[in-house]
């Protein structure tokens, strides 16, 4: 039986960024532009899906005492394979993602989910968990990037399609951006506010 709960929990109840607080480096580093956030999320989705499936399939084969090196080898190989394929067959996406692709290796959402979920659950549940967590990650990252880009630069950068160059401009803010929001301190402040907001929401639900 499919466990739809495993899919939906990652979106809000166990949101990887705001509730479990995993993968903060990319969340803070990449969230300067909406297009970066979406590209990073796509990479994380592929790697997380395959790593959860493979690690779950091998969960009875990998002994506990060597599971970390085994997982790291599997995750690093997957990232490299995806990087090579993108470089060869989707050079535009590869160029856009640039340095973020290899950084997915050290994204703790991937190792975290392998540890906490895929190592002790069935393949199908693990795949659903990966999809749910990726959706949660995508939404959180896009939310942070949207706030930072609109306030910090007065633009919304998407992907160029046809004659549309991919950049939406926000009136007034484009001339008077709050630069600090786009820089590192703004990322940390915003993360704090959003975390507080999500904690408050979660607490109200318990009551």
């Amino acid at each position: 039986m499919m466990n739809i709960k495993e899919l939906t929990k990652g979106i809000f109840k166990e949101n990887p960024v705001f509730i479990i607080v995993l993968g903060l480096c990319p969340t803070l580093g990449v969230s300067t532009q909406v297009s970066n956030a979406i590209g990073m999320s796509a990479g994380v989705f592929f790697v997380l899906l395959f790593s959860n499936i493979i690690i779950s399939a091998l969960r009875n084969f990998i002994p506990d005492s060597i599971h970390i090196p085994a997982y790291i080898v599997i995750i690093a190989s997957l990232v490299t394979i995806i990087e090579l394929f993108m470089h060869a067959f989707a050079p535009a996406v590869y160029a856009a993602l640039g340095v973020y692709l290899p950084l997915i290796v050290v994204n703790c959402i991937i190792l975290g989910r392998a540890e906490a979920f895929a190592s002790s659950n069935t393949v199908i549940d693990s795949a659903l968990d990966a999809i749910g967590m990726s959706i949660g990650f995508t939404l959180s990252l896009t939310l942070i990037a949207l706030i930072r880009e609109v306030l910090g630069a007065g633009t919304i950068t998407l992907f160029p399609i046809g004659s549309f160059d991919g950049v939406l401009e926000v009136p007034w803010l484009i001339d008077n951006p709050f630069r600090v929001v786009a820089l590192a301190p703004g990322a940390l402040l915003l993360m704090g506010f959003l975390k507080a907001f999500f904690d408050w929401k979660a607490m109200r639900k318990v009551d």
Partner: protein
Amino acid sequence: MKKNIKYALILLSICAISTAALALTNSITAPVIEVQEEENRLAALKAVSMGYEIGVQEDIVGDRSVTFVTDLKDGGQTVGYILGLKGAGYGGEMALVASYKSDGEILRVQLLSHNETPGLGKKAENAGYMAKYEGTGAGSEVPTNKNMLSASDAQAVSGSTVTFAAIGKALEAGSRYVNELGGK
């Protein structure tokens, strides 16, 4: 002891399978990537040539900044050079191609490959970024520092200080190199 050997073998088999998968992927993608990079390089050479005829490429070994040089000819007369340049950016080595007049003035610059941070150093890919360098090198100094730009130009490269200086230094070295060639 026996357990350790078993664990080692398990880890070995995982590594072996991963390596095999990587080798297979590489054998599929390497030729495609190579063709692409050659195409990119030729396109970049053409883009910086300003319509002049591109001469025979000569690889330079041992220079800190210059990787290759070719002549630019207009009706058999050498009017300038295209240099392949490398610089140390924020995310490692960057490769550039730039065309120069014989007196060392920068005509056009194009970024070939880099690992700069998106949103910051990666801005160097944007149209207009390289215009900050073009026209300098002979009469005026190549900007290797944000402070050498006007306030509005400095704003356009803000956030990419290291990248801007790295490209500037590579281009300056290229300009000196062209001067040493002395229009021969």
